[in-house]
C-alpha cells in the first residue's frame, strides 16, 4: 500500500476543503466515511476511486489525486449518494465542483465526456436550444468515432426524431447574452 505523509498534506487540505466549500457549499468534514454513498452508487463499478474515497482524498488534501481522477467525470449526477447520506453531504455537488476545478487546471481524463458537454453548450449558445443531430455529428467527428450509432440514424430520420436543420429561437440574442454575461462575471454564485 502506498504511504502518504499526512503532515505535509494537512495545510494543503485546508485550502482545497475551503475552496470546495466556497464553490459548492459542501463541507467534506461532515463526512464520517460510512460508505453508504459508494454502496448505492450505480457508477462505482467503473470508477478509479469510489465516491467515499473521493471525499477522503479531499479530506486528506490529496489535491492532485482528487482532481486527476476519472471518478469525478464518471459521476452521472444521479444524486443517489446525497439522497441516502446520513450526514447530508451533497456528493454530486462536490463532484461537480471538482470537475469544474479540474477542468480549469487542464485535467480532463475523460475527454469524450468533456467534449460532449462542450458541444452541447455550444449548440445551446448558437441556437437557444440543443440541435441533437448537429451535436451527434460534431461529437462523432471530433471524438473520431465516425460511424458511432450510424445504424440508428435512418429510423430516427423517418420518425422525425432528428432534424437536419437546427431549431432556432427568434429571441436567440437573449440566450447569447446570457452566455456572454456569465463568461464576463468571472466569479460564480453559490
Amino acid at each position, binding site marked *: 500500500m502506498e504511504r502518504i505523509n499526512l503532515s505535509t498534506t494537512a495545510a494543503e487540505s485546508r485550502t482545497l476543503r475551503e475552496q470546495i466549500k466556497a464553490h459548492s457549499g459542501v463541507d467534506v468534514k461532515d463526512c464520517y466515511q460510512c460508505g453508504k454513498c459508494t454502496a448505492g452508487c450505480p*457508477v462505482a463499478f467503473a470508477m478509479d476511486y469510489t465516491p467515499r474515497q473521493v471525499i477522503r482524498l479531499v479530506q486528506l488534501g490529496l489535491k492532485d489525486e482528487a482532481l486527476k481522477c476519472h471518478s469525478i467525470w*464518471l459521476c452521472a449526477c*444521479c444524486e*443517489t449518494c*446525497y439522497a441516502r447520506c446520513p450526514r447530508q453531504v451533497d456528493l454530486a455537488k462536490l463532484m461537480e465542483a471538482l470537475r469544474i476545478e479540474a477542468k480549469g487546471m487542464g485535467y480532463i481524463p475523460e475527454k469524450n465526456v468533456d467534449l*460532449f458537454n462542450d458541444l*452541447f453548450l455550444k449548440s*445551446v449558445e448558437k441556437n437557444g436550444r440543443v440541435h*441533437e443531430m448537429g451535436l451527434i455529428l460534431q461529437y462523432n467527428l471530433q471524438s473520431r468515432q465516425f460511424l458511432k450509432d450510424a445504424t440508428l440514424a435512418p429510423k430516427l430520420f423517418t420518425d422525425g426524431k432528428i432534424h437536419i436543420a437546427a431549431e432556432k429561437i427568434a429571441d436567440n440574442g437573449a440566450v447569447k447574452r446570457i452566455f456572454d454575461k456569465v463568461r464576463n462575471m468571472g466569479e460564480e454564485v453559490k
Partner: protein
Amino acid sequence: MKYAYYPGCSLNSTGIEYNVSAKAVAKHLGLELWEIPEWNCCGASAAHNTDHLLSLALPARNLAIAEKEGLDVAVPCAACFNRLKATQQAVRQSSATKETINSVIEMEYQGTNDVLALSEALVRAFSLESIKEKVVRPLTDLKAAVYYGCLLVRPPELTQFDDAEDPQSVDNIITALGADPVNWAFKVECCGAGHSTTRPDVGLPMIDKILADAKANGADCVVTACPLCFLNLDMRQKEIEQKYDRSYQLPIFYFTELMGLAFGYSTKDMGVNKHFVNPMPLLEGKDLLRHPATRRDEA
C-alpha cells in the same frame, strides 16, 4: 385549468412521442398547456457540470416568462424539471443569487410560480379518480415496471416529488388506467444518462441491469417519465441484447402514451409507432387495442 408548458429540447426531437401524447392527454382532460414562447434549453447536465451560474440563468429565463403570465410550469422531462426546480429554489433562498440571475437574464424572476413534473401536475389538476373516469379502454393485465430514474425524485429536498426510494405517483396513474405495476428493485436506479453515448462501456451495463430486473420481475413493459431514460431503454435495447447476448424485447412507454391509449386514442396518435422496440405485439397480444366501446363494457 391552465399551466405554462416547458417541453424542453428532447420533446421536439428524440422524445417526440412524449410531447405528442402529453399534449393530447392534457387536452382530453381539459387542461390548457401554454407553451412558453421562445423557450430556451435548460442547459441540462452540461451546464451544471461547467458553470453554476449558467445552469441557473438558462432555466430562469423560461421561468420568468411563465411568471409574467402568472402560471405554474408543468415539465414533462425529468432532467428539465430538476434544473428548473433548482433555479426556483436558488432564487427563493437567496436574494443575492436572485439579483445576479436577474441581471444575467435581463428579466425579473421572483420565484413566485411553481415548477411541477407533468405527472404531478396532471394529478393535482384532475385527481386519480377523475383520470380513472376517463378510461374507456382499460389496460387490463398489462404488467408495467414503472421507472422513475434519478432527477424526478432526487435530491428529495429539491424535487419534493414523492418518495425518493419507492415513489408511487406514476404507479398510481398506471393503476388508474387498469394496468398492474410490478414490484421491482430498479425504479429509481440511474440509467447512466449520457454515458451510453460518451462511455458506452459504462452506460450500457447500467441500462442492461434495469431491463434485466424489470424482466425478472415479470414486467411486460417499462413505463418512463423522462425522454433520456426512454431513449436509453428503447433505442439502446437491441445493441444491449446483441452485446450481452440477451433477449428482452421489452417495450418502453411514456406514461402519457399509456394514458392516451386507455382514453381511446390510436397508437399512431400517441406516437407509439415510432418506438425502436415494437410494442404492437404486446398491445395486440393483450388485446388492449380493441374498440373502446366494447372494451369498457367488459371491464
